[in-house]
């Protein structure tokens, strides 16, 4: 029982991180149909921001917001430089462009800051545990889950109760018509990228909290998990992305706890195999409403 509760907490924590990444991927996809491989670079950027600020003895009250801002900033810059000229191109073209951008940034980071992983000096409270009777819970896991829930509520409020939020939901439904209604396309898209990048920055705080080393490629793994989560949930569906994130987190923790030791290195392969099988039955994901084309 004790073991189970701890694994559930663990799963909720990992799931929160994946949900944040998947939600960021899905927000951009829902409007632009862009599968953004460079989303991983937003996470990496936030990681390096934390590393350099922590090394410079900046207080953590400032570092955490800076990480989120760094993610959002990189997202906005990439939108302007790389993705705006490609807007409206085929899904394949945009996907490949983002793949290329992602690799270019990874290698540029390798050239500038070096390939060697750098340890982020996290504050000591992230390592402390809360003792509830016989159950030990990491404070970091609690923070991750609570913050994620709060942020999800905030985003839901934003999308429902602000004009820009309404415009974004309309754009996700039909971008062309939304523009005809007088909504400036660029503002909607930039806001989508800013939110996407900020979510990546927030995810980075918790992700690196669990494994506090950042390297030029460290964004790729959480990105892949975000993709899988978003596809499971149904690309383009925001609740689907969040649900997919928690499902994936739970699945991963469950596999890690139950699989024999020799197979834990193959968890990614198992998850991908499950994904392919799941897509066989539901090609557009669990909450999938919008596919590459609409069935008549």
């Amino acid at each position: 029982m004790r073991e189970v509760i701890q694994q559930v907490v663990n799963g909720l924590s990992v799931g929160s991180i994946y949900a944040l990444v998947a939600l960021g991927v899905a927000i951009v996809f829902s409007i632009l149909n862009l599968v953004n491989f460079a989303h991983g670079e937003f996470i990496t950027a936030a990681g390096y921001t934390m590393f350099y600020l922590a090394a410079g003895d900046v207080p953590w009250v400032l570092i955490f917001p800076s990480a989120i801002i760094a993610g959002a900033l990189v997202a906005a810059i990439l939108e302007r430089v790389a993705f705006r000229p490609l807007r409206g191109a085929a899904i394949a073209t945009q996907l490949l462009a983002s793949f290329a951008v992602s690799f270019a940034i990874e290698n540029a980071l390798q050239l500038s800051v070096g390939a060697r992983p750098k340890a982020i000096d996290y504050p000591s409270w992230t390592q402390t545990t809360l003792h509830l009777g016989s159950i030990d819970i990491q404070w970091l896991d609690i923070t991750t889950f609570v913050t994620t829930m709060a942020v999800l509520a905030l985003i839901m409020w934003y999308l429902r109760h602000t004009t820009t939020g309404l415009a974004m939901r309309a754009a996700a439904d039909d971008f062309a018509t939304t523009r005809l209604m007088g909504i400036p396309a660029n503002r909607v898209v930039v806001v989508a990228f800013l939110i996407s990048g900020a979510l990546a920055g927030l995810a980075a705080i918790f992700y690196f909290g669990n494994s506090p080393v950042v390297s030029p490629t460290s964004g790729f793994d959480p990105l892949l998990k975000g993709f899988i989560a978003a596809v499971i949930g149904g690309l383009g569906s925001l609740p689907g992305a969040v649900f997919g994130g928690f499902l994936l987190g739970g699945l991963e923790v469950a596999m890690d706890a139950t699989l024999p030791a020799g197979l834990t290195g193959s968890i990614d392969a198992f998850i991908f195999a499950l994904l392919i099988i799941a897509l066989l039955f539901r090609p557009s994901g669990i909450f999938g409403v919008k596919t590459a084309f609409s069935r008549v």
Partner: protein
Amino acid sequence: MANDAGATSAATPGRQLGPWWLRSLGGSAGLMVVLLVIAVAVNAAGSPTDLRVATTFFIYLVVALGLQTFTGYSGIISFAHVGFMALGGYASALLTTPALIKQTSIPDAPHWLMSAELNFWVAGAIAVVLVMLIAFVIGIPLVRLNGAPAAVATIGVLVIVNTILSNSDSITRGAQAFYGIPAKTTIFVAAAVAAGAVLVARLFRDSDSGLGLRSSRLDVLGSEASGVNVDRVRLLAWTLSAGIAAAGGVLFAHYLTTLLPSVFMYNLTLTILTMIIIGGPTASGAVVGAMIVSVATEFLRRAEDTFSAPGLSTVVLGIFILVTMIVRPSGLLGRWEIDTWLRGRWRQVRRVQSGTTTGGGGS
């Protein structure tokens, strides 16, 4: 417009040059001759570096043509083909490497595999057929997917292949290098296989199935409504393209004589994807793209060494893709095969000439 060949012949009804496959043969003959001439010229007059660059170009071209046959014609990005390349390479390597070497490198392998010392061509053929079988089975669920979910699922194939290869310690030596593969890939072998791949990719492109597949790239519903069984032509292209990619992997294995699973991951995928994107979605596009990327990579590699800046080539490659996509979203050659394009130009020139003569006579 999907059928450019049909459109050209429709524009000039009197100039039908025989059945489609004969025109494809004629169309690819030019490219195949160019490839063989490159091989002969480099072999006769090139430095060892030229020889290496040219052979690598031919090998990557084969893989690029494989990827083109699926991704280029169907419009669905595949990350899986480098995985198929790896499977082809490992399969052929296991079947040809001398038993003496295998006894020390993979002592726990099954006996039949340990004693297998097949001829290069036989092993290569077996490897290609094996990979096509595997691809066929994986393809059944995959071809039903479109767009982004399809791309993510193919990443899954790549990850699964990599995980299997790097964990099969007793057969592939896992994450360690598999060594002792007989060096059989000379520049002529590579060029001949590349020429064959050009032919296969071109013939498939112009066939009914290829035509149907290319129409589904533009509009899945529309082509289904016109009687194309999209799942069927996609599965056909997927299986065929995996076979071509596997042939590239066989060449790769017998050229380097050493294999590592980590080679067949995202970096190589990006390189191959760049080749077909820069060139455009045709067999000629793959040749032109592979040529540009191979030469550019070689220069960049030297620049990397000179400035001791590893990773520079990928940065430049990435920017290269981005700029090509912005400036020419459909690749350098667009949707035309090079011979169709040349013939179109030629006809245009003649029309302009005869037009001016008629105009001059009339006034």
